[in-house]
C-alpha cells in the first residue's frame, strides 16, 4: 500500500496537468459548437466537394456536426490522441521510473517482491487513467448539456467514454511492456509520441484503404465512434480484442520486470 500511495503522490502533477490540458482543449472547442451547429449545413456542403477518400481519411465522414454528440465524435480523434499519449506515458513511466532516476538500488532492495512492486505500480497507473477519464468525461458531459439545446443521449455518451478508457488501457499496458523491455529509458515523451502517432498513422491508412486486416493492428480502429453514435452499439469483437491484447501486454511486462537484471548506475 505504501508503494501505491507514494506513486500516486509522485504522479499527482502529471495527472493534474494532463487533466487541465484536456479540459481546456474540450472547453475551447465546445465553446465553438453553437457557431458550428449553425453553419453545419454550409460545412457539409463544403465537405461534399472534397474527394470522398480525403474526407474519410480525415475521419470527418459520418459525423453530424449539427448534433452535440456528432461534434464530440468529430473531436474524439484528438481527444483519443491526447489520452493515448497520457496513458502510454503513464505506463511506460511508472515501470521505468527507478531505471530513469537510478533509484532501483533503493526500491528494489526493500523487503518486497518485484511482483508486489509492479502490481502496486500497475494499480497506480490504472487509477490514474481511470481518474483522468472519469473526471474528463463527467465535466465534458455537463459542458455538452449546457451547449446542446436538444439534450445529450447519455447511453451513447457513456459508450464513447468507455471507448476512451479502453483505448487508454491498450496504451497503458503497451507502455508498461515497452518500459520493461527497453534497456535504457531516458526520456518518455519522445518515444511515447512516436509510437502513439505510429498507431495513428496505421489508423489513417486503414481508413483510406478499407482493408479490414489493418484495423486489427491499431486500437484507434477498434471502435468506430461514428457507428456507435448512429447504432448505439459497441463492436464486441474488438472489445474482446482490446482487452485480450492489453492482458498480453501487461503479462509480458510483469514477466520481463520480474526476471530482468536491474542496470547499475
Amino acid at each position, binding site marked *: 500500500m*505504501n508503494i501505491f500511495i*507514494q506513486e500516486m503522490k*509522485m504522479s499527482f502533477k502529471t495527472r493534474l496537468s494532463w487533466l487541465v490540458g484536456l479540459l481546456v482543449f474540450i472547453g475551447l472547442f465546445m465553446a465553438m459548437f453553437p457557431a458550428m451547429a449553425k453553419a453545419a449545413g454550409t460545412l457539409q456542403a463544403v465537405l461534399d466537394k472534397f474527394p470522398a477518400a480525403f474526407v474519410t481519411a480525415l475521419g470527418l465522414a459520418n459525423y453530424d456536426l449539427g448534433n452535440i454528440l456528432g461534434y464530440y465524435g468529430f473531436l474524439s480523434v484528438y481527444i483519443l490522441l491526447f489520452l493515448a499519449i497520457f496513458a502510454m506515458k503513464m505506463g511506460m513511466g511508472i515501470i521505468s521510473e527507478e531505471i530513469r*532516476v*537510478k*533509484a*532501483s*538500488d*533503493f526500491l*528494489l*532492495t*526493500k*523487503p*518486497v*517482491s518485484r511482483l508486489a512492486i509492479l502490481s502496486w505500480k500497475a494499480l497506480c497507473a490504472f487509477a490514474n487513467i481511470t481518474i483522468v477519464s472519469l473526471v474528463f468525461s463527467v465535466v465534458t458531459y455537463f459542458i455538452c448539456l449546457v451547449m446542446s439545446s436538444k439534450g445529450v443521449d447519455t447511453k451513447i455518451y457513456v459508450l464513447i467514454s468507455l471507448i476512451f478508457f479502453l483505448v487508454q488501457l491498450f496504451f497503458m499496458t503497451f507502455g508498461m511492456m515497452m518500459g520493461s523491455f527497453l534497456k535504457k529509458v531516458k526520456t518518455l515523451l519522445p518515444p511515447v509520441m512516436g509510437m502513439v502517432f505510429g498507431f495513428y498513422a496505421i489508423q489513417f491508412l486503414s481508413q483510406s484503404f478499407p482493408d479490414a486486416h489493418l484495423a486489427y493492428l491499431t486500437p484507434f480502429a477498434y471502435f468506430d465512434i461514428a457507428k456507435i453514435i448512429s447504432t448505439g452499439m459497441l463492436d464486441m469483437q474488438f472489445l474482446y480484442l482490446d482487452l485480450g491484447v492489453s492482458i498480453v501486454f501487461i503479462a509480458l511486462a510483469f514477466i520481463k520486470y520480474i*526476471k530482468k*537484471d*536491474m542496470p*547499475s*548506475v
Partner: protein
Amino acid sequence: MKAIEISNLTKYYGKARGIIDVSFDVEEGEIFGFIGPNGAGKSTTIRTLMSLIYPDSGTAKIFGKDCIKDGVEVRKGIGYLPSEVFYYDNMKVLNLLKYSASFYGKVDMTRIKYLAEVMDLDLSKKIDDLSYGNKKKVGIVQGLLHNPKLIILDEPTGGIDPLIQQRFFDLILEENKKGATVLFSSHILSEVQRLCTRVGIIKDGKMIKVENIEVLQNTNYKKYKITMREDLPKDFFGITGVSNYAEDHKEASFIFSGDPNIMLEKLYHQKVQNLTIEEPSLEEIFMHYYEK
C-alpha cells in the same frame, strides 16, 4: 550460523565478465572487508546478494536463506548502502526516509532523528538540492534506520568529509557491537584496515584471497617518494622490504613494508630536498603482496 555464504557465484553481463566462481563466507558478528580495484566485481557480488541482478550459476545465502528464492525475507534484515546514491529528486529527505522505513513496519522517528543528527543531515531539504556527499548521508541513514542484522556497504565513504567519515565509522562500530554483521566493500585499504576483522580480496572478477586483517596490518605498506639534493648513492635503498623501486638521478620512489624508523634513520644523514610518505594504491599493494 553464517551471515553470508557465497558459493561458486558466477555472473556475466552478456559476454562481459562480472564475477567468476566467487566463494566466501562472512561470520555472524564480524566486519568483513571486501576489497578490490574498480571493476573487480565487488558491486556485482553485492547486487546479487540484494537480488538486483540474477546470477548465472552458484548460490548466495544470507542467514541460511537463499538470496533470490527467499529474497523478501532476506532483505528484511539487510541495510544496504549503494555505491552511487540516487533517489526520487522531488522528495524531501524526511519523506524519503519515512517511505524507506515504511517497508520495515512502524516508522521510528526517534531513530531517524538520531541518525540524522549523528550524520549532520538536514531532513527538511529536497533530495534534488543535496550535494553528492549529503546524498550519501541520506543513503547511510536510510540503510541503518531499521536496525538491520546485516549491513552491506558498497564504497560508503566516497564524497563525505573526514569528520563525517569518522562519525560514520563510529556508527558502524556501534551497530556491530549491538550484534550487526557488516560487509564493507572498498578500494581503499586503510579504511578497511581500520574497521575490519577479515578481508576478502577480489580482482578481475575472481576472489584471490580471504585474509585475517592482522596479517595485512603487520605488513605496514607505505609509498615513499624522495628527492635528494645530490645524486643518490649507488644501491642506497637496497634493503629488505623495498619493492616497486624506480630511480631517476636524485629521485627515487618505492613501496616499503616494515618499520618506518629504519627508513627514517637511513635518511637522517642524507640531504633530502623533498619527502612524501603516502598510502599506496591497492594495485601497488597487490603487486607487492603477490610478488613474494
